């Protein structure tokens, strides 16, 4: 009877240590999960910003005036591998994707490539395949966002 009472009274030091270790594991796991969630959300936001960079160029290519008399620079044909297109100025061939609040800390930037090739067609019309690809590195991982459209002359 006394042995049973002793065994039920209080917790042993080893039990407390094991409990603390288990708690530490939970804490580390939960913190890691939140950190990963935070990083994924940040990555997703950068992806959206990168997509908007590509989208704005596709929109410009689709809507700018393109006639027999005038071919805008954005629709000038390129080689199959394209050429670097710096649409945000700076002449550094780098497009800023996300800039922080102080306007100096660039969170992500990348290289925007413009590829414009003529598509053969039975009518010999000027039909261009326009592709914009933005390649950037964020948190050590390289991603590319690419969009393609078709453009013909206005006249």
């Amino acid at each position, binding site marked *: 009877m006394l042995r049973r009472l*002793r065994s039920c009274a209080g917790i042993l030091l080893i039990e407390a240590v094991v409990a603390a270790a288990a708690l530490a594991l939970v*804490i580390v796991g939960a913190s890691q999960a*939140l950190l990963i969630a*935070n990083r994924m959300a*940040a990555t997703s936001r950068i992806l*959206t910003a990168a997509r908007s960079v590509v989208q*704005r160029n596709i929109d410009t290519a689709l809507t700018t005036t393109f006639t027999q008399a005038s071919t805008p*620079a954005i629709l000038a044909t390129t080689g199959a591998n394209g050429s670097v297109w710096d649409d945000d100025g700076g002449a550094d061939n780098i497009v800023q994707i996300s800039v*922080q609040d102080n306007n100096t800390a660039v969170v992500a930037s990348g290289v925007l490539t413009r590829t414009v090739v003529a598509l053969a067609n039975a009518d010999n019309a000027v039909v261009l395949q326009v592709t914009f690809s933005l390649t950037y590195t964020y948190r050590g991982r390289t991603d590319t966002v690419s969009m393609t459209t078709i453009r013909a002359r206005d006249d």
Partner: protein
Amino acid sequence: MTKMKTLHHYRSQSGTTLAETMVYALIGIIISCIAYTFLTSTTQLYAKNLSLVHSHSDMRSVLDRTLNNMQRGNSLPVLIDTSGAVVATPPSAGLYYDSYRGDPYVITNPSGNGLAAGTTTAILTSSMSALASPPAPAVGDAIIISNPGGDVRVRLTACVAGTFDSTNNRQPYTVTFATALASAISWTSAETRTATLVHREAFLVVPVSGYSELRYFKDFEPIPNAAGLANSANYTVITKQLSVLTGEMTPFSIATVGTDKIVKASFFARCTDYSTYLNNRQANEFNTFVRVNTSLSSRLRPQQ
């Protein structure tokens, strides 16, 4: 004596020594410190996560809505300020544009010579084919009539559907103009003159209190007065997390691209959910601030 000895023995075995108690207390303190640190860190991460996701989500909503609507635009948008007045020098807090509704609507030539200046009514006829039936004109819509001397745009104040022509599957509408035609539109009976149906909409960034709202007005003609602009029944809030800082409440401008003009937008989102708590807990407002520059091209606009 035997009984007392047994109880003493029992007490000595069932309790904890001072050393044990101190060790337990130390472990408890350590665990409490870790738990407190964990809770505060978790709270910070939770706040950062929500701010990041919220600011991102809002920015996506803004981009999706503005891009989608502007691509339905039938004209180059007009920049306006928060009172609805036209802004001559960009950037601006808002813009209005003609949203494309449908075409073609064949205009009846009443005299064989077209519509005279001063005309206030017209008959529009549209196809009712399931494959090509533009919507019925409605009060508040406007029609754009192509004209060699320059397109004529006029708002509708009344629209009455006529008798349906089941033989030709056509529906006529008698429409009344808000103002008389300022100039004559001439065409012969041998020609067909059509109109395009549009509806004026607007986006406006309005500072509220510590944040700015991006408001979408589905009816912006005539331009609402101050009370109308402030009436929440007249607009939909796309986001209420745009910045109120100087230079960040005027996102819209018009840029010349080659020989063309395109609306440029620079949206600054500042998530306000936990901005106070996260103050000085993040670098450069990494989680709460997001900025996106984009272009908002209209479906159709005068090439300039």
